[in-house]
């Protein structure tokens, strides 16, 4: 299994005002007036609620990244199955009559199109239920974070059945998302996972060190205990 991530550095998705700026009820498909928490992306000038509202939604990452193998073959990527199933099933729902709803209400100011245009090919991945959107809405814990962008479609072609074969890969970036003015950086990460998640040497080293300390402590304790006379 191969996963593709985009990473953002120096991006404060965990800022209090940022974290707060959303309305979970709206994302649940309820069409009541949105919460004040979304300020200043609560209402458009004409008074109708942004769909979706809030700073998080407004700042959704919208670069599109494509990977080309050996200069010709586009790597087939899946844009589903990248969000938590609970989020997809329970936390995010589209309102009834989604297409008209999204057309009648304005998208956040930064968006070029409405939420209903997020994935026109897959109505189950459209609107609030768009997995790119869901992933973005799950705010990162730290200012240097990566988010799952795509996963490799191993079924569509023979070449990628066993993962990414060796070769030249070209990353094509459609640049929409500015990060320069807050000296942010973008990354694109290709990774496999094990049962322990991604690669992380820290835990291994920590276990070795702590294990050695424990062993020493055991020996010392044992000797001290045996020689303890009162």
């Amino acid at each position, binding site marked *: 299994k191969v996963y593709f991530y985009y990473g953002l550095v120096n991006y*404060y998705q965990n800022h209090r005002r940022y974290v707060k700026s959303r309305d979970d009820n709206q994302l649940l498909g309820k069409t009541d007036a949105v919460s004040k928490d979304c*300020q200043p992306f609560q209402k458009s000038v004409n008074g109708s609620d942004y769909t979706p509202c809030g700073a998080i939604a407004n700042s959704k990452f919208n670069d599109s990244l494509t990977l080309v193998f050996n200069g010709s073959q586009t790597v087939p990527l899946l844009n589903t199955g990248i969000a938590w199933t609970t989020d997809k099933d*329970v936390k995010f729902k589209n309102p009834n009559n989604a297409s008209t709803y999204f057309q009648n209400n304005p998208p956040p100011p930064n968006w070029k199109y409405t939420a209903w245009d997020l994935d026109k090919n897959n109505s189950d991945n459209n609107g609030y239920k768009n997995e790119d959107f869901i992933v973005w809405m799950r705010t990162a*814990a730290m200012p240097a*974070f990566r988010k799952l962008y795509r996963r490799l479609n191993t079924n569509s072609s023979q070449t990628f059945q066993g993962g990414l074969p060796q070769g030249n890969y070209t990353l094509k970036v459609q640049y929409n998302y500015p990060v320069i*003015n807050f000296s942010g950086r973008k990354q694109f990460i290709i990774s496999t996972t094990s049962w322990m998640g991604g*690669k992380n040497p820290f835990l291994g080293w*920590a276990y070795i060190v702590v294990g050695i300390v424990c062993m020493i*402590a055991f020996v010392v304790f044992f000797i001290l205990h045996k020689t303890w006379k*009162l």
Partner: protein
Amino acid sequence: MKNFSFLKKKTIPEETRKIQINDREANALKTFPKNEVSTSKYNFVTFLPKNLFEQFHRLANAYFLFLLCLQLIPQISSLPPYTTIVPLCFVLTLTAIKDAIDDLGRHRSDKHVNNRQTQVIDENDIIFRKWKDIQVGDMIQLVNDEFVTADILIISTSEQNGLCYIETAELDGETNLKVRQSLEETQSIGDDIDDLTNFRGEIECDLPNNNLNKFQGNLKWNNQTLPLKNDNILLRGTRLRNTQWVVGIVLYAGSDTKLMKNTNKPSFKRSHMDKLLDKIIIGILIFLLFLCLTMTICCSIWEYEIGSSFVIYLPHESYISSNHLRGSIQIGFLVFLSYVITLSTVVPISLYVSIEFVRLLQSKWIDWDIEMFYEKNNVSAHVRTTTLNEELGQIQYVFSDKTGTLTQNIMTFKKCSIAGQLFGYVYDSNGTEIEDLNKLEAVEMNGDEENFLWFDKSLIKEIENHNENVERFFILLSLCHTVMIEEKNGQISYQAQSPDEYALVSAARAFYFTFQNRTQTTITIDIKGKQFTYNLLNILDFNNERQRMSVIVEKDGQIYLFCKGGDTKIKERLASNQIELLKQTDEHLNNFANDSLRTLCLAWKSIEKSQYDQWAAKLNVANTSMENRDEKVCEMYEEIEKDLLLIGATGIEDKLQDGVPQCLQRLTQAGIKIWVLTGDKIETAYNIGLSCRLLTNEMEIQMIEETTEEEVEAKLSQIRNLIIEKIETLFDVQPIDKTQRLNWKQLGIDTKNFDLFRKKSLQASIQSDLEDSFNQSTINEFFEGFAILITGQALIHALSDRLNMKFLEIATMCKALICCRVTPMQKAQVVELVIKHEKQTTLAIGDGANDVSMIQKAHIGIGISGQEGQQAVLASDFSFGQFRYLERLLLIHGRLSYLRVSKFLRYFFYKNFAFTFCHFWFSFFCGFSAQTVYDPMYGALYNSLFSTFPILFLSIFDRDVNDNYSLNKPYLYIPGQKDEFFNKKLLIKSILHGILSSLFIFFITYLSISNGKMIEMDLQSFGFLIGTIIVIIVNLQNALQIWYWTIYYHLALWLTILIYFLFHLTLYSTYLMKFFRTNYTYVGVAKQILFDPKFYLILILICVVLLLPVFIQEFYRMRFIPDETNKARYNQKYRYEEKARFIEHIRPKKHLRKRLPRSSYAFAQQEGWGKLITSGIMQTKKKPQTRASHDLNIHQRKSRIYSSNLTGTL
């Protein structure tokens, strides 16, 4: 000048109280308080506002109210308001309920007192009225054994000469009867109901005051003005005794009575720990503000550097200035308040309520302690103030009443020496003394004395053999006294001024030498069934100077003088041929003294008629002389009381309460200083001091009996020099700087074991030449410290501003201090002196109303529910039935409570800092925006649900050693006194531990989940991960703290962790959608984290990293530097001390020379009733001379019949 006198005239009426007798209307015009007393705090209406007001006075509650207000402002609120509202309401309600229950109890007890009934003479009738309806100026009639309703003026009594007897135990703790007298002029009214109804007049008296011994006033009646003295009034709190009835007029009622004026309003007591806690919280708040300020600065910088450029994705609010710098600073300041909210959990809101809950449950241990249940009176220990438990583990000074507290106030005749023969000791067949007499069968004695037990058959034999000396001994006992007789249902009972006299006369009766009757001139005694009447010629009464009393009696033409008194005084007056006998008796007296008996010597002589007549004539002259009459009379007494023949000596036991010596010994070993404050005489106090081992023969005892300030000052410096001298000769110390305050600690001497600090050179020479120098032997004697006895007179000066520090210096150097003849106020003053200048924890224990002021003043007041009424108990914080329970209360419950509360507090701050500081670390990553790491719900419940139960159970069940160990090793108490388990240093340690824990938890987790500095995890998961680890760590940390594992603790610990998981799995589940039509924002997070194996790897890693060092530290401490508590715990487990003791047992002991036992002779009695008897005022009471008193005695429901009887007889 004229002006001045005019003013004076005007002010006089305001300075006195004028009462119209029997005139309710006239008195109603004045605003005298009613006789209703109220000790309650709230009523139905005032409860809510008053209670809330009081609660918000508490620092913590006010703080949380303030936080709540902050949280309501959306711009700065970093947490939803419910995180504060819910716990705050919970805390407020709980406290309010507790206060309400407390106050209900007070209402109830007030009601009980207020609804007692008393007889009021109203319109030719006697009616019953409730106490609360009694008014000033009412005329009331009291009957025998009734409590006096209010402060009243005696009009007439049932007894001759208008006498009446009262027991003042509730007022001053003295149980002997006191005499009060009506005005001669009004006594004639008797109890004629018409005359009483028509009694009109005006009383002018002092304004209400608290002086029990002073009263001045005038009665204007029948056109005469009669002066009123203190002798003419009865005070509320006293009890009428041996008097059929008394008619009186209410002078002061309710809150005006001297009793109530003497009871200070109970002040709210707070333990040292509470006060320390307040300081700590203020300290932490300052620390918090400092943190927030740091955050503000950091935030401003961040906003200026980064945030301002991040506005494309996170625009500023409209009210933030668009100016770069100004906007940053504005945000910084807003963040300050946000961080106040976020970091506010360093001061846990549940702290106060938890600690109070813990104390409440701890006090149940005391309430339920079966070992503290006094079966005889059916009294169990009771905690009346539940907020002081841990204070019991920190007591440094105990102030104890004597009568009824240390002693049972029962005197019994135990031993005697007659003509050189010792009686009262029982030996077994081997000739060794049997000390435990309870197993023996008592000799059968005169059935009238049921409680008298005697075991020595030899004395009975001697009586049967008509041994002349023995008979004379008992005849003396039955003649030489001032005891009165009261007949009740054909039974003779004795009324004595002092319990000693009572004991002697009763003892004589038990041996069939019954004192039967006395008139002004005769005494009738019954010897083995035969009546003998002696003519009473003179009573040479007791006084403090003489320390003896004599009677001169005549029978069959023979005149005898019988004398009893203190041994020194008698010795001086013996005939010269008595030396041999005296020697023997002296030895016996020493025996008695060693057994802590109160001793008296008895002597007699027969007087020639002519010699007596001569002397009597001279006495008469002396008696009628106008100048120095008392001195002259005394001289005459001296003249006749000489060349006495010794009969023997008596040994009376002032029965201590069970286990008192042991209890005191243990408390002393626990480093508690015991000061006895008693109304008794110095000799009595001295005796009791010896018998309860408070004073020992190995102590350096000094008495301060001086009466003027100069003398007291001189004495104090003298004692100080003596102490210095003694220390320098005995101990290996640096030369003492005489200008500095003496202090054992500074001298480097541990008062618990003086021997350790004795001069080394001298210690070595103990075995060597004993006959060497006198000096050496004095140094080698035992030394157990200093002790001081001081009289109330001297104490007045010693407590003055000029001398009190000097006094305190000496007093604190002493192991024991006994204050004699002190007033209730002085008791409180002594306590206050120690509290104020020593800053140490004090405990006062007493049983009478005279102890109330001291009980209220001390940090902890303990009431003994004894015979002296409930006043002391009502004013106390703890109460129980016997003094000896004090050791259990302090050494077991107090010590454990202190230990538990200490652990509780240490842990509480630890866990809250561990919890809160994650926010702090996180702030460096979230742009100092006051974003919280955790789910707000978790934050709200952390303190109540996820970390509280184990510590609660720890603070209820934890113990280091078992009860027996605690009692037998009193030194385990000392850490409490030194604040060793909870102090600022330990607190800072706990806080640092908490901070470090949070640091490790935060960064290990952060590093573990980041891949190449990038983190995939979202904020909610991260918060849940950290929160879970904290809960587990913090609870396991608690498990490392507990010493005593119980099933309850196991349950609490593991269930807490289990509940944590269950709660979150439920809260974060998708099921909520079904019930609430909405999700919790954290939906799915728990599943995501808990099914990730990495979580467990991180958890185990952090557990090891954080708990192993604690484990190592504990092990190291136990292994290499164990303190006494740890040693004791280890001891208990492996019992190695028992083995050591065995080895000690078989090793030969070194012997120190003992000082000769100090004898203790006493004649403890007030000036007797001799004068009253011989002058005929006080007579043997015959069968009630009063008419209808029978009805009275039966019961007073038929007041109508009674009143008609009254009128009929007069």
